[in-house]
């Protein structure tokens, strides 16, 4: 496996290449990068890959002066089964 093919988001299986290409093409924020590639939108809620998605966006795009959270958090922060949703 080449470095470009390596998985960054383990849940959604998004590769380094896909993230790099998307970031270069759209010069987008970490949040937009997430929405375009689905990196960080899987089962774990982005806990495993958010620091990496953040860094790729910061390197390739205009996210350099970030001081506020670039990747939003949304509840529920742990998956809930349908059984428990009904209460």
């Amino acid at each position: 496996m080449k470095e470009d093919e390596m998985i960054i988001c383990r849940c959604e299986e998004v590769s380094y290449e896909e993230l790099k290409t998307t970031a270069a093409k759209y010069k987008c924020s970490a949040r937009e990068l997430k929405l375009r590639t689905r990196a960080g939108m899987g089962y774990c809620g982005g806990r495993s890959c958010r620091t990496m998605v953040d860094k790729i966006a910061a390197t390739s795009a205009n996210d350099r002066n970030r001081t506020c959270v670039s990747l939003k958090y949304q509840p529920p922060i742990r998956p809930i089964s349908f059984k428990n949703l009904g209460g």
Partner: protein
Amino acid sequence: MTRRILDHPILGKMEDNNYVSFTFNQKGYKGLENESLAAALLANGIRTLRHHEESGSPRGIYCNIGHCYECRVSVDGQQGIRACLTPVKEGMTVESDGQLPSSKRR
């Protein structure tokens, strides 16, 4: 095959020895009561806990403390249970979640 650390130079001898039986993918194993399912399986030499839903790539424990959800399995019929946070009980039935029959990307 990985093993238990029964004697540790600082932590001393392991005191727990209450072994219980459980199954993983229809095979029987022994684990220490209330240790994590992930630890019990690893002590039995099992690293692959599931296969990715789309690609089918094999996965095992990654963070071991509930953050990454890589170790999720079905326990007594309930899906998406983190093996690293689930205490082993006598008679537990554990199944690997696997690749789904049809996938969106194909």
